[in-house]
């Protein structure tokens, strides 16, 4: 506003903090480099592209370390529309890490299939850039643009297996529903913009209180904005795309969607809810309550009946989103509850990312041999791939919330936020979550049972050869899951530090 007002008379060059923007800039650079290399490199030399992309991601993560070590100062730019704080750093790190793991997972997959390699990495990196930008965006326009940047490549990636009808369909469904929901979200944003008279989140929070006569408009605005991101995080009833898309998309992309894209949705929700709409708890708390309850329950119940592992994981990720929504529902306007809700959501996201990625990595590894996505194809895995079985079991246990795999701490954090709120509604939701986690255990352990107990379906016991990159990915994720499980303190700190709005 100040800037804009001055601009009316005289253009002032914005002060950009290039140190804070370093990750974004490096990533952009990498995108360009990869694109150019793809153009100029010989077909036989293109194997370097993933390495360069991976190297680029790690390089982009480097400034984060620097920024984190620098101290806890909040680097705010362009009138508070773009901020680099602990929250942003943590999530940027998460996204880059996730991106790196997905890259490792994709490596051989893309090589062996008939895909456009260079462009694949461009898409992946672009989407990643969108997410990184999302972590710092503190204004409606930035959020919108970041959302689109992370979505559009994702729509395309879902259809990357061009000759596969399922992949096409996945892409189409994802695209159509995605665009529709971003339309709804935009409509909501326009209403919020109208009511608050600003697009910067910090200011929206203050402004909304001053226009009580617009409460209904604001409520609808908030709701529509939430719808846009509820779609992204695949909350019921905006989840319909997820199972179909996950099933159809190439598996590394599915992993990416289910983890990074979902996390990005939550990042946006966190920023919007806990900065912009903080004062409007009456509106969004019940909304999230219903969303959370529906999401957990429907996700888990439908997952019970799945026979395809990816589809099962899709519904599982729907249900997991429900757990992450729980803290939103119970964060009242009491500071402590808000704090604890954010911590819970953040911690859950961190852990969820690791475990879900890991699970998909296993699916990928197993599918290399079985060429099937059916749960029954995991039969007797233990007999010929004990390592994978054990690791998968760790991930499943984590998803189900069984210590010492990390998942328990995520659930724990959620329950903690529920009790921190302490209201009747909160506890009711906690009970729903508890019941759901039991239901969930059933289908997770159905897979475990398949692997450990059931016979090998086709009696083919040739061992699975896991490529090095995939092994690295598995190693990383399983290490994270176990470390969190045993030393959750580390991550709890992270979650605490990363909370917004202090």
């Amino acid at each position, binding site marked *: 506003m100040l*800037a*804009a007002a001055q*601009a*009316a008379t005289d*253009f*002032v*060059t*914005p002060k*950009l903090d290039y140190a804070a*923007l370093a990750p974004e800039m490096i990533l*952009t650079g990498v*995108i360009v480099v990869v*694109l150019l290399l793809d153009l100029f490199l010989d077909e036989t030399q293109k194997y370097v592209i993933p390495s360069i992309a991976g190297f680029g991601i790690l390089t982009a993560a480097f400034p984060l370390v620097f920024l984190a070590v620098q101290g806890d100062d909040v680097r705010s*730019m*362009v*009138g508070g*529309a*773009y901020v680099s704080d602990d929250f942003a750093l943590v999530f940027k790190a998460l996204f880059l890490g996730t991106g790196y793991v997905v890259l490792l997972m994709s490596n051989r997959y893309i090589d062996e299939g008939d895909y*456009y390699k260079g*462009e694949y990495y*461009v*898409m992946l990196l*672009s*989407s990643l*850039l*969108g997410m990184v*930008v999302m972590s710092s*965006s503190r204004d409606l*326009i*930035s959020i*919108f*643009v*970041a959302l*689109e*940047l992370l979505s*559009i*490549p994702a729509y*395309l990636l879902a*259809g*990357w297996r*061009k000759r596969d009808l399922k992949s096409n369909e996945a*892409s189409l469904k994802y695209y159509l529903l995605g665009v529709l929901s971003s339309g709804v979200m935009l409509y909501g944003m326009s209403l919020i913009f*109208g*009511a608050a008279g600003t697009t910067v989140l910090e200011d929206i929070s203050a402004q909304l209180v001053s226009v009580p*006569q*617009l409460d*209904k*408009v604001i409520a*609808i605005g908030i709701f529509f904005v939430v719808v846009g991101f509820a779609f992204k995080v695949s909350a019921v009833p905006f989840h319909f795309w997820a199972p179909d898309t996950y099933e159809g998309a190439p598996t590394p992309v599915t992993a990416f969607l289910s983890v990074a894209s979902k996390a990005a949705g939550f990042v946006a929700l966190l920023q919007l809810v806990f900065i912009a709409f903080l004062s409007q708890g009456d509106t969004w708390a019940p909304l999230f309550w219903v969303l959370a309850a529906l999401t957990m329950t429907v996700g888990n119940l439908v997952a019970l009946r799945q026979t395809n592992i990816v589809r099962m994981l899709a519904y599982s990720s729907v249900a997991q989103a429900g757990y992450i929504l729980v803290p939103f529902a119970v964060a009242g306007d009491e500071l402590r509850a808000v704090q604890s809700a954010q911590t819970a959501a953040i911690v859950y996201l961190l852990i969820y990312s690791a475990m879900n990625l890991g699970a998909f990595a296993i699916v990928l590894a197993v599918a290399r041999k079985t060429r099937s996505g059916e749960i029954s194809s995991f039969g007797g895995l233990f007999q010929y791939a004990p390592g994978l079985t054990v690791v998968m079991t760790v991930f499943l246990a984590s998803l189900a919330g069984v210590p010492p795999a990390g998942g328990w701490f995520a659930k724990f954090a959620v329950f903690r936020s529920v009790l921190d709120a302490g209201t009747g509604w909160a506890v009711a939701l906690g009970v729903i979550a508890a019941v759901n986690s039991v239901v969930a255990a059933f289908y997770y352990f159905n897979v475990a049972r398949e692997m450990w107990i059931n016979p090998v379906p086709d009696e083919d016991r040739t061992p699975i050869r896991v490529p090095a990159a995939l092994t690295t990915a598995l190693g990383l994720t399983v290490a994270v899951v176990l470390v969190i499980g045993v030393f959750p303190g580390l991550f709890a700190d992270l979650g605490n530090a990363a909370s917004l709005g202090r």
Partner: protein
Amino acid sequence: MSGANVAFGVLAAVMAVSAIRVVTTKNVVHAALYLVLVLAGVAGIFILLAAEFLAIVQILVYIGAIVVLFLFGIMLTRAPIGRAPDLDNDQRAIGAVVAMFLFGVLGWILYDGFGDTQLQLRDVGRSGDVGASIFSTFVVPFEVISVLLLAALVGAVVIARRD
């Protein structure tokens, strides 16, 4: 401001009818043409709201580019150029109910919030201010959107090309 009101009335009527035709017509090409009318109407509305720059962009980008894209799309997918009986699926009733329900809810809420608010156009928005704003406050999204367009371009080519 009766002139503006009249202009709005005309524009709104044309847009409403055209919009309805876009979603009801049995001819695919007609739909595209009705869409042009709606988009042009939107440009007119922008002018009424003193946003000339935006109006021009609207015409250039939408009518000049997007509608053409649509027409290419119609052509490439060999859609029936004449009247086609089954352009709609079987959820017409549901669609109508949902749409009208939404419209009712939105209308009521908007009326509840902005029922008697007058619009005062004090000044015509200058393009220069728009530019300054883009390059100061919104410079990050601006840069980001360039990457977006690049990615969309590359991606669309990869997906759409025959191989």
